[in-house]
């Protein structure tokens, strides 16, 4: 589904990703872990096509398409979703209007008719339950005045509504208390399916207690230096990253 | 110009024939032409909307005779505990240095002294900067200053020189006859230079004074300039002060304008951010009662990208005092990434006090962060009640809250001893209250 080959990327002229390789197939859950500054969030931004990041070398292929050729909204319409680490507030724009616009734009891209209002409302109701999202949040402006937990829950709710093929969750666990973490993780698990892949970017193993990954990768200094199964995450939790640094030396 | 108010001074100008250095002469002539065109600002002028000079200009003034019989300035030690500043004076229109300052050895190349003298000794240097900012100002009073000013304070700080003690300039208006006073100060900081200037304004004597001072400041790349102005004059004083600051790339300035006692005051402050990454901070406070009038007219020009300005003015007005504040912020086309923040907060303490504010934002670039706020109101009643419920008397509570209100202006002063001194002066000023707007007894 997603294939990343020898990816190099700069931000403000500083190289952050230095030859990253990764392959993700449908139905898989991958976890990417690593110390601060390793390039985890950069990877998420580059995949989404954030113009602040410049790809200097390498390839990204998504469902057979060259991702580098596509604008951010085209990537979204192709089925790519990023759950932001810091979701942006958009004052005055209600979540309902925002999501309806997003959904219809994506449908337009795929040559589909706009979703009828009644279907959209039914869908909203259904998906809200999935992430135990309170009704009033969808009537409020996008992310405005949301608590940290509400923002993250709203991200997963949007993911549920837009039904992407590949979702990247960038530090979705940061700033969440244990109950919110459980709710968010449950939401993600319910969305997992054989057609869908999920990449979880996280600092801590605790999210992986709830979202069990098929693969765990260690991102270090702009490269994936070690891959394994969920036991790797447990070892990182108890021993830290020093042993990896030693292995590399 | 057929107006008699102007005509009288135009005649006077023609009669004053003191020979000056050539730098002064050319500027005087140009100023004369400008004044003939502009005249004094009248009550219809948008620029002087909040300052009515009609009464002040109807008084018959004489010009300074530049001849001090006694050294009045010696009475004004203006000593601030904890600061050993270098002390200079402009008495009426004429410059004097204290004995201490005369004997002071500054780092190589530093010049501090009389502008008149500097215009002879360093004519090229003075010619390069003198009048360069003021000649662009369309203000009749600045032109007027140019017609009559013949001296003032001059300071030159060469590249990368830091003057480690504050320089203090005490302006004294003195005499028993009504006088119209004009002085011109010129301050030049070369690249990377650093200096702090403290300016005190006082009056002595029983006459009416019309003080019209002009200060031009050139702050070169990466230089840092701090300007603290404290006015403590008399109710018979009309005080016009124009401060023009030109800032080059990565320079930093901090300007603090405090009006504690006065008659009618108009401060024109213009910060011109003419280099990228320049930073200008401008703070002001005014305490007014009786029929004092304070008008701060500020203009911050963001002419280049990536500059920052913060502006905060606070007024506490009682009696029949009147406050005015104009805050113009101009962001030029292409001055992207500008940050400009402005706030005007005012408290009215009496039914007869009056406040008028006029923020004025003109923005021609899109990638900017600009905000401004203005409030006119009273002391917070809930806070008053809270303090009183803790056993603090109403008067004392009021004082505490006024003091707290003014504090965030004072907190920005970077000379610790001066900060303490101003706090003391403010407290004294607030305690002395409505009836006795005492002069600056702390400094005497």
């Amino acid at each position: 589904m997603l294939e990343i080959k020898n990816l190099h990327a700069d931000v403000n002229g500083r190289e952050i990703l230095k030859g990253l390789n990764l392959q993700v197939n449908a139905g898989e859950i991958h976890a990417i872990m690593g110390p601060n500054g390793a390039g985890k969030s950069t990877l998420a931004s580059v995949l989404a096509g954030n113009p602040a990041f410049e790809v200097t070398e390498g390839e990204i292929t998504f469902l057979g398409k060259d991702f580098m050729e596509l604008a951010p909204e085209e990537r979204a319409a192709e089925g790519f979703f990023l759950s932001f680490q810091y979701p942006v507030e958009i004052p005055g724009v209600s979540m309902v209007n925002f999501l309806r616009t997003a959904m219809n734009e994506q449908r337009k891209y795929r040559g589909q008719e706009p979703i009828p209002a009644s279907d959209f409302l039914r869908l909203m109701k259904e998906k809200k339950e999935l992430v135990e999202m309170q009704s009033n949040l969808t009537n409020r402006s996008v992310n405005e005045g949301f608590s940290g937990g509400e923002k993250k829950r709203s991200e997963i709710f949007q993911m549920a509504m837009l039904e992407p093929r590949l979702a990247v969750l960038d530090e979705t666990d940061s700033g969440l208390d244990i109950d919110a973490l459980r709710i968010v993780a449950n939401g993600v698990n319910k969305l997992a399916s054989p057609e869908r892949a999920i990449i979880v970017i996280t600092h801590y193993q605790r999210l992986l207690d709830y979202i069990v990954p098929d693969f765990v990768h260690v991102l270090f200094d702009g490269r994936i230096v070690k891959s394994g199964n969920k036991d790797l995450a447990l070892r990182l939790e108890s021993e830290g990253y020093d042993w990896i640094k030693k292995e590399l030396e | 110009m057929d107006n008699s108010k102007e005509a009288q001074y135009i005649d006077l100008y023609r009669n004053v024939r003191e020979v000056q250095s050539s730098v002064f002469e050319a500027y005087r002539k140009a100023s004369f032409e400008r004044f003939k065109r502009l005249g004094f600002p009248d009550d219809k002028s948008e620029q002087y909307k909040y300052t009515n000079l009609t009464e002040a200009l109807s008084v018959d003034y004489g010009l300074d005779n530049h001849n001090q019989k006694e050294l009045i300035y010696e009475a004004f030690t203006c000593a601030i505990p904890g600061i050993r500043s270098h002390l200079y004076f402009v008495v009426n229109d004429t410059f004097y240095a204290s004995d201490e300052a005369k004997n002071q050895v500054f780092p190589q190349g530093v010049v501090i002294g009389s502008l008149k003298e500097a215009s002879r000794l360093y004519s090229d240097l003075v010619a390069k900067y003198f009048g360069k900012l003021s000649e662009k100002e369309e203000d009749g009073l600045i032109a007027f200053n140019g017609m009559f000013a013949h001296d003032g304070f001059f300071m030159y700080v060469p590249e990368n020189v830091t003057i480690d003690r504050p320089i203090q300039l005490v302006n004294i208006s003195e005499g028993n006859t009504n006088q119209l006073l004009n002085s011109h100060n010129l301050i030049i900081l070369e690249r990377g230079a650093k200096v702090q200037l403290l300016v005190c304004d006082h009056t002595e004597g029983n006459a009416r004074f019309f003080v019209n001072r002009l200060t031009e400041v050139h702050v070169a790349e990466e230089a840092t300039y701090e300007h603290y102005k404290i006015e403590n004059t008399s109710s018979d004083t009309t005080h016009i002060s124009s401060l023009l600051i030109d800032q080059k790339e990565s320079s930093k300035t901090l300007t603090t304008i405090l009006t504690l006692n006065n008659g009618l005051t108009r401060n024109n402050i213009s910060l011109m951010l003419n280099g990228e990454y320049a930073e200008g901070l401008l703070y002001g406070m005014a305490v007014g009662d009786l029929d004092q009038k304070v008008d701060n007219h500020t203009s911050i020009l963001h002419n280049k990208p990536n500059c920052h300005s913060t502006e905060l003015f606070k007024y506490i007005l009682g009696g029949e005092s009147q406050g005015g504040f104009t805050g113009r912020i101009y962001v030029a086309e292409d001055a992207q990434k500008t940050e400009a923040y402005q706030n005007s907060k005012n408290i009215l303490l009496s039914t007869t006090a009056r406040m008028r504010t006029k923020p004025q934002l003109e923005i021609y670039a899109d990638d900017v962060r600009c905000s401004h706020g203005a409030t006119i109101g009273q002391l917070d009643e809930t806070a008053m009640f809270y303090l009183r419920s803790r056993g603090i008397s109403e008067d004392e509570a009021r004082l505490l809250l006024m003091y707290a209100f003014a504090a965030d202006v004072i907190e920005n002063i970077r000379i610790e001893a001066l900060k303490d001194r101003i706090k003391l002066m403010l407290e004294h000023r607030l305690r002395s209250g409505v009836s006795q707007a005492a002069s600056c007894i702390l400094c005497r």
Partner: protein
Amino acid sequence: MSEDILEQVTQSEYKYGFTTDVETEIVPPGLSEDIVRLISQKKNEPEWLLEFRLKAYRHWAKMKMPNWAYLKIPEIDYQSISYYAAPKKKNLNSLDEVDPELLKTFDKLGIPLEEQKILSGVAVDAVMDSVSVKTTFKKELAERGIIFCSFSEAVQEYPDLVKQYMASVVPYDDNFFAALNSAVFSDGSFVYIPKGVRCPMELSTYFRINAINTGQFERTLIVADDDSYVSYLEGCTAPMRDENQLHAAIVEIVAMNNAEVKYSTVQNWYPGDKKGRGGIYNFVTKRGICKGKNSRISWTQVETGSAITWKYPSCILKGDNSSAEFYSVAVTNNHQQADTGTKMIHLGKNTSSHILSKGISAGLSQNSYRGLVYVGKEAENARNFSQCDSMLLSDRCGAHTFPYMEVNNDSAVVEHEATTSKISEDQIFYCNQRGIPTEEAVGLIVNGYAKEVLNKLPMEFAVEAQKLLQITLEGSVG
């Protein structure tokens, strides 16, 4: 529901630029006492009104155009403008007598003049060039004692009311354009709501400039007597022409004890083309007086049209406990210039006012907010809160803010806040990531930014100006 207004009017080409081919009577260009007399005579006016016009004309002739606004106004030759133009057929009793071309015009504009076709109750007074074409629902309103008719008709039918209130809020010598209007005003709307009556439907005037080389000088007077209520809507369009046309109107509102008047405008005069050619000069004096105790006036305006706008809908808060509101969205694009805002004059005790202004500048346009909050000596406990935000959408436009505050009473609390911003790249990227292309994202964010004001528009505007509105899912989700 009103979220799409802005998108519609800013992103689409001007749709109302057509002209109507009706027989029109136009007086020759130029302004003189004779022209003033001619207008008055054509309208068969009483002597006192002619005297009023002449007084205004003589005063105007001595005045100069104001130049303090942040506007570059090309020289206007007041002698080259025609001051009166009217479709030839008038004094109609039924819709059948209206020129079918005129009916077509208002149909095209989405203004229903056929009462049976109207879905929700909105009474319309349609003004084409200098005269009122047709007022709907007159009978229904008359049953409740409400007067809603053209200004000319009011002069004939209710001269005492007109005489009592006309120029009581905006005197003939108030300013240059008010003096001009007072001399040559042609028609407009008159509204009187009697004591204790809540007007059951929205009243609406639709202004249309059609004739070439004419100015439009209409005059609106709304009087709400004790304990009454009315909501009034104003819409306006003009054909696309290469030359500029002058529109100098006066609106006066009087609110007596406990009365409430809501005045909403969607100002959509032709703004000129992309190169800045043509467009309406919109120099309007709008002012209301909260004359009685507990009275209330609100101005809501969505300003998208006109080449140049000079307009400050204001309120005099004279009655104790009166309150006033001003909500404004002003959008400028291409070469448009707007200098608009409000004046809140607090005179009575316990008065309050609220100002919310959202400016949006794009292209090469200049957009200024200018406001005054004045608290008089006797105005105990006055309260004002003002918020003025500007958004810039291009790096070649300007956004300016001039909020004056003058407080002469120590019990007042007057607060002003303002911000200037552009749409952040983070917001756009966030929308992009959800699949929303940048252009749509900008529309969405701009609409969100202006929403607080748009929400103040009455629902019924949707019926009157159908082309400007689309009902969205907004608010329909529980």
